């Protein structure tokens, strides 16, 4: 079980405040969706948890240790941006990742890549956008960190790739021990896969709830909730 806590976390980029005193403890395991309009602070939140950026005030801790440069074995961050090297092949990308990330499960990476029908000899440069996304996810999942931060893994993908990506997560995430945070605008598609939801608006977390319980009490879809709290 992993304890991720944020205490009064604020973050500014220049004068613009991206997060405003976020104070919460994340669920210990399972899949949590982070939804909200563009610019509401979702990516900033994930980057803070993975230790890629530091808060201006407040603390982010994973199991009692403040996140930072050394959080790589605790939290993996899947970037929305290109994070693969064009000149490498799929196979070389796996070998390279195994050298970079402590605890990288090479065997799992090969299995994932095979499950998604990628050819290890293909160069990253020649992969379609969907296949690049598949490879990025395979590399991230193979790190087997207690916390996975997936930033917009479905964005810009066709329906089949989106289905593939969600299937890969459901098949290989250890939902009893790992915590997977996913930001997405594909709210309806994501909803059945979520244990938990955070809704962000203007740099704050305005909803932080278990999805089934939310449905039982509110009898509403997440999109309706989103519309209500951000409208």
């Amino acid at each position, binding site marked *: 079980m992993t304890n991720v806590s944020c205490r009064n976390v604020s973050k500014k980029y220049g004068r613009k405040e991206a997060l405003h005193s976020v104070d919460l403890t994340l669920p210990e395991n399972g899949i949590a969706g982070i939804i909200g309009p563009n610019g509401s602070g979702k990516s900033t939140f994930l980057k803070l948890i993975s230790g890629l950026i530091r808060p201006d005030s407040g603390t982010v801790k994973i199991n009692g240790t403040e996140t930072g440069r050394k959080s790589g074995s605790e939290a993996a961050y899947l970037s929305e941006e290109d994070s693969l090297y064009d000149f490498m092949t799929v196979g070389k990308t796996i070998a390279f990742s195994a050298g970079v990330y402590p605890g990288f499960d090479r065997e799992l990476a090969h299995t994932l890549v095979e499950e998604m029908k990628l050819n290890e000899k293909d160069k990253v440069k020649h992969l379609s956008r969907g296949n690049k996304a598949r490879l990025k996810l395979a590399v991230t999942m193979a790190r087997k960190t207690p916390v996975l931060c997936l930033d917009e893994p479905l964005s810009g993908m066709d329906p089949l790739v989106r289905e593939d990506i969600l299937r890969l997560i459901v*098949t290989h995430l250890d939902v009893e021990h790992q915590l997977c945070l996913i930001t997405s605008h594909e709210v309806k598609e994501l909803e059945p896969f979520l244990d938990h939801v955070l809704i962000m608006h203007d740099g704050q977390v305005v909803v932080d709830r278990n999805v089934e319980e939310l449905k039982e009490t509110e009898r509403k879809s997440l999109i309706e909730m989103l519309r209500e709290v951000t409208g």
Partner: protein
Amino acid sequence: MKHIEFNDYQPIYQQLMDHISQRICRGDLAPGEKLPSVRTMAVEAGVNPNTVSRTYMELEREKIVESRRGQGTFVTEEKQVIEKLRKSQAAVQADRFKSSMEQLGIDKETAFQLLNNTWDGNGGSS
């Protein structure tokens, strides 16, 4: 298998319970048959594995399935339980039919007549 279409107003585990119950009533899942593992069911249905665990737990509480340690989850072999389940599933559908008819302002007699016609295959939705 195609992912199940879920409605917005009911918790997913309940919808999945209904879905599995219907398959059991139809005999699509036979008495004593092993249910797919939690993860397989999650992938098939397109839901979170934790939701499937909860679904199996609730089904077990209602004695519709039983889990055997280290072996998995199995459909009950008690015919009575399945018969009871069939009746309660049918009652739910009957309730739905009744309220739809009421919403259309159709009285009991007309509704029965419609049902009779539909049953005998003359006078559908033309």
